[in-house]
């Protein structure tokens, strides 16, 4: 049976924790709004880009198609680009992305293929390095940037492209968490090289004039598309992270509240028991006289 002082200390400590989680929840809520706005602002660009690409790619035939669409023809070396958060305390956010990537990596290895991993974000690296320390070829750290933007995405995309041009891998897949709502973030794997373009989505039948010619436009557009996809992944991830943190901290705050309630009850009960005990002692002492 803990003493009254122990109980008091315990309640005070849970209260302090609750204050922290409450503050974190509110900070996450504020950041979420900004991250969500950024993610939504980036969507139209990605969508239009897809449309234009679909229109263009429909016109480019098999052998003349650039490598970024057609692939290298091989399927041996896979690059996994795993985007996670830089910070923890956001529920299952980081681990669910890492798990998806790990499952994929293990499946590929079981098929006898080579796996290379680029980690964007420290947390994913922390999880994956236990199992795949030999396969991780690079870790991109975004901690120093307050607002992650186009520049960061471009740097990552350039890095991936350089490796692709050097023939370091055949297929690249991007792992991130799609933001659906505050309580629902979906870990997603998206193949970025060779680019997956649904030619069927080309809605206009009009024949375009190209200036300069088609292949040249595709050559400038495809690397940019890669950047846009990476940017989208990062922005969606940022929104998801804040959403996950918000709901994780919300439930932590609630749990702390419940614990405080239980402990307070226990505290009151033992205090009452002590008072009753003392009263009985006094009365029985008085009766004995």
């Amino acid at each position, binding site marked *: 049976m803990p003493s009254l002082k122990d109980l008091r200390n315990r309640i005070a400590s849970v209260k302090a924790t609750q204050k922290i989680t409450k503050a974190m929840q509110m900070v996450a809520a504020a950041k979420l709004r900004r991250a969500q706005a950024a993610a939504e602002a980036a969507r139209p660009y990605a969508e239009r880009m897809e449309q234009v690409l679909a229109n263009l790619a429909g016109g480019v035939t098999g052998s003349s198609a650039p490598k970024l669409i057609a692939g290298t023809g091989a399927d041996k070396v896979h690059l996994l680009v795993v985007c996670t958060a830089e910070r923890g305390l956001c529920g299952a956010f980081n681990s669910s992305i890492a798990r998806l990537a790990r499952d994929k990596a293990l499946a590929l290895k079981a098929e006898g293929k080579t796996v290379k991993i680029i980690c964007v974000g420290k947390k994913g690296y922390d999880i994956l390095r236990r199992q795949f320390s030999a396969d991780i070829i690079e870790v991109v750290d975004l901690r120093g940037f307050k607002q992650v933007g186009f520049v960061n995405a471009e740097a990552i995309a350039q890095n991936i492209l350089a490796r692709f041009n050097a023939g370091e891998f055949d297929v690249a897949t991007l792992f991130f968490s799609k933001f659906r709502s505050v309580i629902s973030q979906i870990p997603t794997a998206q193949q970025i090289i060779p680019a997956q373009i649904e030619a069927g989505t080309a809605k206009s039948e009009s024949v375009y004039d190209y200036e*300069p010619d088609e292949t040249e436009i595709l050559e400038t557009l495809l690397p940019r598309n890669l950047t846009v996809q990476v940017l989208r992944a990062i922005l969606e991830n940022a929104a998801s992270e804040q959403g996950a943190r918000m709901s994780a901290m919300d439930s932590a705050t609630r749990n702390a509240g419940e614990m405080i309630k239980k402990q307070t009850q226990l505290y009151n009960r033992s205090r009452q028991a002590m008072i009753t005990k003392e009263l009985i002692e006094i009365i029985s002492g008085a009766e004995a006289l």
Partner: protein
Amino acid sequence: MATFKFELVSPESILFSGEVNSVIVPAVEGEMTVLAGHAPVVATLKPGILVLIKTDASNGKEFFVSGGIVEINPTGMTILAEQAKFIEDVDTAVLDQEILTAETRLAAAPEDESEQRRLHDQLVQLKEFRAVFEERRAN
């Protein structure tokens, strides 16, 4: 005068969306003015100034675009800009920064000849535009 739907989209936001009479675009192979009912075209852009012509108060609004792609189809016109800003927000420091990144990128470019040529063209275009911009400033 007939209008058409025009959208200027940068990776971070939609800068403009609405009906316009015509748009002057800095395409790679020369500036072009687009009116309603233009034939479908896809073209790449070079660094330059984009001018909107409209009938209402915001007529003549100008944007700086650092490159990108323009798509014109029967339903309207879309510009996917690499980077776009209101012209008032641009100064030579911004351009110098752009030139610097282009230079470092060219220096780090792979052996691939077409890639080098593309980056080199971009750098030249940026420098050209900087000269034009300064001249404009001076007047």
